């Protein structure tokens, strides 16, 4: 809001899917209509890593410095950096000026937005986040993506298919053998379900469906049914799950500080959601993850090492592990093991 004489004028900001400040406009003449020729105050276009385009749209702006990722651009003393909450970001080189407070072992501690700045934003400077929600991708009629919902192993919502198999066969090549030797499975869109109507997108493979839809769903809501489904059809594609979506209600800092185990010089413990840390209300968590190794990084914050969803026998000897594994395999059917990576951190209690 700006003061114009005795009046206050609202300035409106149009932000994109990453929270970037793209357009600022105001109803300067108070006629209730925005005139694009005179009432657009500022327009910002960015290179992917946040450097602002120069040489066109030279509008005066209103001095509001919150731009890329909705964060303050510091141009005093020629610094030209963004002041995110915990770190400073230099859009000219697409790198942070200091290390990541939460190290992700797959990336350099200076790399930004997990090297994917059109999907992730990072206004905190500590962890990438996305603004695209599952509902945007999953069930948006008319968007050309899909008009179906698939939850807990049951197909619901607008559907033209009679069964899950028909749905799957129409969306990807469902684990069918390559009988004609063309290197591709022989399932696919000629399944026995009714043909799709309208303009739904058909994914060529589970991998493509997974990349475009499932991974986004799994990130924040990875159910036991999802875990088995992905084991059966996922062909080993790794899954990334947001660590903060897991329940660590009674895991305390005290427990880490008593532990003599270290991971990269930080205290670590293994929680067994099926055994010693079993709690009825998180049975599903136990069935998916079993045990997870957690690392305490200070300030009531934990991170987790990658887990594996696997029912492969290890050697031929009879051990407790192989007995458990065999039981798991019987219940879950044939599948391919996959890694579960945990994104971000979670908070725990002190005591």
């Amino acid at each position: 809001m700006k003061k114009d004489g005795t009046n206050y004028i609202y300035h409106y900001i149009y932000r994109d899917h990453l929270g970037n400040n793209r357009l600022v406009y105001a109803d300067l003449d108070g006629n209730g209509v925005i005139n694009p020729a005179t009432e657009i105050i500022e327009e910002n276009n960015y290179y992917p890593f946040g450097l602002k385009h120069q040489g066109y749209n030279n509008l005066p702006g209103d001095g509001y410095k919150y731009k890329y990722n909705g964060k303050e651009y510091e141009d005093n003393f020629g610094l030209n950096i963004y002041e995110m909450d915990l770190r400073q970001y230099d859009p000219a080189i697409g790198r942070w000026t200091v290390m990541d407070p939460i190290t992700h072992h797959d990336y350099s501690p200076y790399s930004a937005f997990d090297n994917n700045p059109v999907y992730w934003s990072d206004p905190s400077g500590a962890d990438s986040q996305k603004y695209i929600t599952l509902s945007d991708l999953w069930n948006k009629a008319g968007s050309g993506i899909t008009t179906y919902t698939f939850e807990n192993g049951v197909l619901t919502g607008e559907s033209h298919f009679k069964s899950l198999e028909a749905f799957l066969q129409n969306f990807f090549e469902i684990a069918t053998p390559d009988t004609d030797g063309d290197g591709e499975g022989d399932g696919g869109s000629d399944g026995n379900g009714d043909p799709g109507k309208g303009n739904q997108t058909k994914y060529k493979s589970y991998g493509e469906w997974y990349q475009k839809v499932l991974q986004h769903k799994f990130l924040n809501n990875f159910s036991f049914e999802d875990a088995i489904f992905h084991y059966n059809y996922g062909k080993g594609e790794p899954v990334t799950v947001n660590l903060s979506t897991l329940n660590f209600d009674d895991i305390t800092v005290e427990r880490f500080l008593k532990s003599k185990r270290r991971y990269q010089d930080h205290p670590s413990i293994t929680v067994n959601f099926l055994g010693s840390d079993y709690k009825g209300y998180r049975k599903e968590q136990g069935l998916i993850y079993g045990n997870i190794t957690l690392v305490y990084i200070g300030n009531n914050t934990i991170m987790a090492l990658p887990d594996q969803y696997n029912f492969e026998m290890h050697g031929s000897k009879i051990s407790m592990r192989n007995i458990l594994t065999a039981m798991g395999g019987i219940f879950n059917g044939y599948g391919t093991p996959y890694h579960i990576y945990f994104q971000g951190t979670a908070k725990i209690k002190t005591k």
Partner: protein
Amino acid sequence: MKKVALFILLSFTLISCVNEKKRHIDRLNQLIGTNFDYKDERIIIEQEQDFSSLITSITVPLTSLEKQQILSNNKRLFRYYETKIDSSVLKGFSYDMENERVRESINIEKDSNSLNYTVYKN
């Protein structure tokens, strides 16, 4: 019949646990040139396992002399660390190895006389 099956199952489990302990202690001895005996009751073994992974944690109490000997004989392997956690600082010596399926970590804290050997197996 069920009882017989259960007995056999438990026997196999017990045997495999004993073997596990011996195997891990042998490996530890091989890594840092020690001579620990898996039958030594002071050595504590804890295991967490699920369908996919097995995490074994072995704690060995040491005398001051043993601690000194291990660290001086394995100077090149152990790395000194100081980690600031909240208001305290953790100090110790660690030795980590990692490959695709197994990660091993040995930790000896500066101010305590015990060694922790952890094996993460996926």
